[in-house]
């Protein structure tokens, strides 16, 4: 397909869509004198169809097939879940996911918070924040390529120069270069660095807004009491921004649980670096093990739910105050 055809297809799609919305609005406009209910029905109809067919039905079907074998033909009960929690290979996946979720939210939030406090009110605050925040705007794939280059490895031979910055630093201080993405178990940590690099900007932005919302007289009163900067942080800033910290950490936890792009782009899940979301993709689309793939997706669902519920609860609590 050439470029013109592609854009024509796109224009056609938008046209079809505009026509559908137009018809809905036209019928709604005709019937609204008689009944508001019919208008509501018409306005909700496309959404209801799309969510039922595109989200509800697939979710139920996936849960159903998580109790079936690789081909999706015979019922095996909890067999797939036994594989996830029983086989050595899958246990490494679970271990890695746990490491990701235990490290990323804390480190990313801590760095974001530290930076937000350091640059708060300083000259050049805007550009300084933009530097940390820009990784949020780019794709995980591009971020992975950026870091893959930092970790690039060249054999340790006299006439070979390192081209990756990290290995060059090792060489400069007199250490042998390392295969950062291949040597287990630390390679998972080097992947986590990428996620922290992306998420710290998110934490910084939200927490910075939250710090700025602390009333000036509270800070002034604390200063008149003669608190030092660390007491100020511990007894004034931190309690005031606690709800935002919780929201930021839970949000990053959810994103981390679902991390797929980074693992796939940097190692493809090899060298013991796979995580649940990546394993889901590999099992479903590479190994054609539909049952195990479905079970991994369901596991992801089950892991995400409590965090989301807690997050919504915290959001409500912080709004109620």
């Amino acid at each position: 397909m050439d470029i013109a055809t592609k854009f024509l297809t796109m224009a056609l799609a938008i046209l079809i869509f505009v026509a559908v919305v137009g018809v809905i609005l036209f019928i709604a406009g005709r019937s609204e004198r008689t009944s508001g209910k019919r208008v509501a029905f018409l306005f909700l109809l496309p959404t209801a169809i799309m969510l039922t067919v595109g989200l509800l039905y697939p979710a139920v079907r996936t849960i159903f097939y998580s109790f079936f074998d690789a081909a999706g033909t015979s019922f095996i009960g909890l067999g797939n879940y036994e594989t996830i929690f029983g086989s050595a290979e899958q246990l490494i996946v679970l271990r890695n996911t746990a490491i990701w979720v235990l490290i990323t939210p804390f480190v990313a939030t801590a760095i974001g918070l530290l930076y937000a406090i350091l640059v708060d009110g300083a000259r050049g605050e805007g550009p300084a924040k933009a530097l940390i925040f820009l990784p949020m705007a780019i794709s995980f794939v591009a971020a992975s390529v950026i870091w893959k280059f930092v970790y690039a490895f060249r054999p340790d031979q006299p006439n070979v120069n390192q081209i990756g910055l990290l290995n060059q630093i090792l060489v400069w201080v007199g250490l042998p270069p390392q295969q950062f993405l291949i040597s287990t178990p630390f390679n998972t940590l080097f992947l986590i660095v990428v996620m922290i690099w992306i998420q710290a900007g998110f934490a910084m932005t939200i927490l910075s807004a939250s710090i700025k919302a602390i009333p000036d007289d509270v800070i002034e009163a604390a200063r008149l009491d003669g608190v030092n900067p660390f007491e100020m942080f511990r007894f004034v800033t931190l309690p005031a921004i606690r709800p935002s910290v919780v929201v930021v950490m839970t949000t990053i936890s959810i994103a981390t649980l679902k991390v797929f792009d980074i693992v796939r782009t940097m190692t493809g899940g090899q060298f013991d670096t796979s995580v649940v979301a990546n394993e889901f993709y590999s099992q479903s689309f590479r190994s054609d093990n539909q049952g195990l793939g479905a079970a991994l997706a369901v596991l992801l669902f089950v892991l995400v739910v409590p965090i989301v519920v807690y997050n919504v609860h915290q959001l409500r609590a912080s709004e109620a105050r």
Partner: protein
Amino acid sequence: MSTVTPQLDLTPEERAALQARSAAGRAAINAKKKLTSPWASFVAVVLAFLWTVPTFGLLVTSFRPELAIKTSGWWTFFANPETTLDNYKAVLSTEGSSGLGAYFVNSFVIVIPAVIIPICLAILAAYAFAWIDFRGRNALFVAVFALQIVPIQVTLIPLLTLYVDAGLAGTFWTIWLSHSIFALPLAIFILHNFMKEIPKELIEAARMDGAGHVKILFRVLLPLMKPAIAAFGIFQFLWVWNDLLVALTFAGGGTAVAPITVGLANLSGTRDTAWHLLSAGSFVAIIVPVVVFIALQRYFVRGLLAGGLKG
């Protein structure tokens, strides 16, 4: 102000100078309340440096000749600057296995409908939830809100099966529809919350004038909703442009439909030492979302906070 200090009859210049001085005073107070040790500045500079260097290194690399990239580190560029645009020419071409041009075009074709469709449908649904009374409204709204927690992984294989059955597999339609579906719960949630904050009197006044729902939506609400639409629009744009999972699942790896993220990921998988292509390819993929992000930054933070649950 003139009542408090009647004796002061300031020229505009003097007033501006006074204001500037009071602003400077406020800034001084602000500066004092920070951790004023030089260590604080030092740590901030180190962090900013660490966060920028990886990207900067790849940016420099993208302008170096292939041979130079392979034989020396990018930091030697400053001692021995050699620049070329060949890498960008290579990745932007639409031919050959290294050209990402077709993927780049696909990204635009994917992202425009994938932003427009959910916004329009969500406006209709959000209006119904916010301003039309019907039985079961609250229960239905909570249900839509709750759908945000469904991870898209759970839906992919059944959706793919549906697309294959419908004969849509491997077309742009699968990606447009999927992104629209996944975006709807969040879009409805954001737009509904915004619509609810519009004063009731405004809607009722329009209704008194004989305006029906369609008219109220277009004449009264839509003009007020620009910030909310922008907040969601930019969030959805970045999400779709940067997505890999949905694209990989439905578009496959070929140049027919797959976006730039898939092209770049493939290149990284098959030619993971071709840094002259990977570096330029990354920046081709990065430049669009960065420009959009910088242009619409102030709307983005709002969308970000509301959209944290998505994915």
